[in-house]
C-alpha cells in the first residue's frame, strides 16, 4: 500500500545542507503494524512527516495506494492527509478550548462533503476507547492516558488507511501506556495499517515488523510471524 523508493531529504539551513535521509526504500502492505526505531537524529521523525504528507522529500517517489504523491499541490495533499492519514502525537495535540467530542470531530472541518453521520461516528469511537461519559469535558480535565485515547479516536474518525503514531506512549506512565498499546493492537487487528515511532523494544514488540534507521539509512527490517 505504501511504496517509498529512493526517498532523500536534505534540510537547507543558513546555507548549510544537512542530509537527513539517504535513499530510503520501504514497501508497507495493508494491515501491517510497523515499528520505526533507531537512535535520536536518525531521521525517524522526518520519515514520519514525509509519510504523513506534512513534509516533501527532496528526491524519491512516494506512492500511497498506487498514487504518486510527490507532485501534488498543497490542496490535494491536504485532502489526502484528511481522508487517508490519521495522526497520533506524543504530546496528544488536543485543542484545549473545545470539548472532547469536538476534538474528535475536528478532521471533518476539512472533509467535503461533511459526513451526515459525523457525530455518530465520533461518539461510537469515543465509546470504543471508553470515554463515552467524558465527551463533553474539556481535554485538560482528562488524564494523559485519556487524552491520548481521545487523540486516537480523532485519528480514526475519518477511517484513514494509515495511522501514524509518533511515540504515542512517550509521555505516559506504564499503566496508561499499556492501555494505549492495547488499543493499537485492537486497531491492528481490525486490519488498519499502523506506523509507530518508538524508542522502546517492549513497545516495538507489539508490531508485526520493526524497521530500524541509522544515520538516515535503513539498518534493519525484520518481519515477525503473527
Amino acid at each position, binding site marked *: 500500500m505504501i511504496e517509498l523508493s529512493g526517498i532523500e531529504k536534505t534540510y537547507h539551513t543558513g546555507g548549510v545542507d544537512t542530509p537527513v535521509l539517504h535513499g530510503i526504500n520501504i514497501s508497507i502492505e495493508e494491515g501491517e503494524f510497523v515499528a520505526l526505531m533507531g537512535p535520536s537524529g536518525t531521521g525517524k521523525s522526518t520519515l514520519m512527516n514525509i509519510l504523513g504528507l506534512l513534509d516533501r522529500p527532496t528526491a524519491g517517489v512516494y506512492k500511497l495506494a498506487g498514487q504518486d504523491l510527490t507532485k501534488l499541490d498543497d490542496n490535494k*495533499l*491536504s*485532502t489526502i*492527509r*484528511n481522508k487517508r492519514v490519521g495522526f497520533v*502525537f506524543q504530546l496528544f495535540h488536543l*485543542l484545549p*478550548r473545545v470539548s472532547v467530542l469536538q476534538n474528535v470531530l475536528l*478532521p471533518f*472541518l476539512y472533509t467535503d462533503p461533511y459526513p451526515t453521520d459525523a457525530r455518530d461516528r465520533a461518539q461510537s469511537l469515543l465509546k470504543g476507547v471508553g470515554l463515552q461519559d467524558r465527551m463533553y469535558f474539556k481535554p485538560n480535565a482528562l488524564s494523559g492516558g485519556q487524552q491520548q485515547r481521545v487523540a486516537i479516536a480523532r485519528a480514526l474518525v475519518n477511517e484513514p488507511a494509515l495511522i501514524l503514531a509518533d511515540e504515542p506512549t512517550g509521555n505516559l506512565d506504564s499503566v496508561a501506556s499499556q492501555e494505549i498499546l492495547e488499543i493499537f493492537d485492537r486497531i491492528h487487528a481490525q486490519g488498519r495499517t499502523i506506523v509507530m515511532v518508538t524508542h522502546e523494544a517492549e513497545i516495538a514488540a507489539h508490531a508485526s515488523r520493526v524497521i530500524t534507521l541509522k544515520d538516515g539509512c535503513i539498518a534493519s527490517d525484520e518481519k515477525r510471524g503473527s
Partner: protein
Amino acid sequence: MRIFRVSRQAGSALWSQKGKAFLMLLGIAVGIMLLTAVVGLSQGVEKRISEITALFGPRAIVIQAGGGRFGGPGDRSASSSTLKLEDAMAIRNRLSERAVVAAAFVTDDIPIKSGDTNAQTDVMAADPNFPQAYDWYVASGDPLDEDDERAMSRVCVLGATIARNFFPEQDPVGQRIMINRVWFTVKGVLTSRGTNAMGFDMDDRLWIPLSTGMRRVFHQDYIRNIRLNVRSADDVAAVTDEATNLLRDRHHIRTPEEDDFRLRTPDFIAQRVRSMARTTELVGAALATVALIVGGVVLMNILLLSLSERIPEIGLKRALGASQHDIFAEFLAESIIVSLMGMALGVLLGLVPVFLIPKLFPLMPMAVTWRTFAYAALFSSFVGGIFGVQPARRAARLDPVEALR
C-alpha cells in the same frame, strides 16, 4: 459548507480569548462610531434639504431686494428698496409662459386688532398671482383678485393661525379686522402650511392686495420680493439665469459689480445647507478614517502577536487536513468577525450622538437610514479584510512540521 465550518472555528477561537478580541475591536468600534455620526449628519442634512425644498417649493425662485449674503444681515432692512414693481412686471412680461410671477411687499410686526383680540404679525402685500406662485390657496372664502388689486380694496386673506386666534367661534369670512389702524374685510382663509425649517409658523400672517399695501397702508414705492413658480422643473436653471440677467440689465449692473438683489432657488439653498455641514463632515470623515486605520493596525498586531500562541493549533489543523487556504480563511475570518463586532459596537455608540445632537442643537440635523448600516458594514469588513491578510498569510505559510514541534 466548508467556509462556514472554518468561520465557526474562527468564532470559537475568538470566544476563547474574549478579552483580546475586545481590544482588537475597540479601535474599529471608535472608527465606526465616528463614521456613523458623520453619515448620520450627512443623511440629516439631506433630509433637512428635502424638507426645505418641499416647503420652499421645488420649482420656486425667490428674488429678494438688496444684495448681501444668504442668511446675513440686512435681510429686511428699510434700505433695501432696490426692487420695484416695474422689475416684477418686466420679468412677468418676459417669462409669463414659463413661470407664474408674483410680487410682494412684506412687513413684519404689524399691529392687528379685531374686537378684543390684538396681535403683531407679518403682513404680506401680494399681487393676485400669489396663490399660483406659492402653490397656496384659500381653504374657505375667496382669493384676492385683479379687481381688489385695481381698486386697492381693503380686503385680506388670513393665515390659518390668525383665523383661529381671532375668530375661534365664527366664520372669519366677512369679518372685519384692523391692520395698522386701517379696517379690512376678511375675504378668505388660506390652507395651513405649518412651520418652516427654521421653526416659524407660516400660518401666522395675513395677505392684502399689493396696491393696497404699497399705497394705502405702508406708503412705499418698492417691493420686497418677487416669487416665480416655474412650470417645468427642468426650466428652473434657465429661468433663474434669464431673470438674473434681466434684473442686472434693468439695474445697470455691469459684470464685476455685485447684484443688488438676491435670487434663491431650492438648489441654492440646498448647496448652502450642505456647505454649512461640509466642514464638520470632512473633519468627522478624516477622524473616522484615521481611527479605522489605527484600529486596523491594532487588530493586525494583536493577531500577529497571538499567532505565536497558536502555532501548535495551526500545526495540528494542518495535520488533520487543513490546506494553506483553510488556515488563511480561518484567520481572515477571525479578523473580519472581530471587525464586524467592532462595527456593531461602533454603530450602537454612534447612534447616541445621532439621536442626542439634534435634541441639543436643533440646527444640526441627524438621521439614520440604511446607508448608516451599509457604510458601517462596508468599511468594517474592508478594514478587517485588509488588515487580516498579513496575519492570515503568515499563519497559512507556517511549516506544519515546525508548527507541531
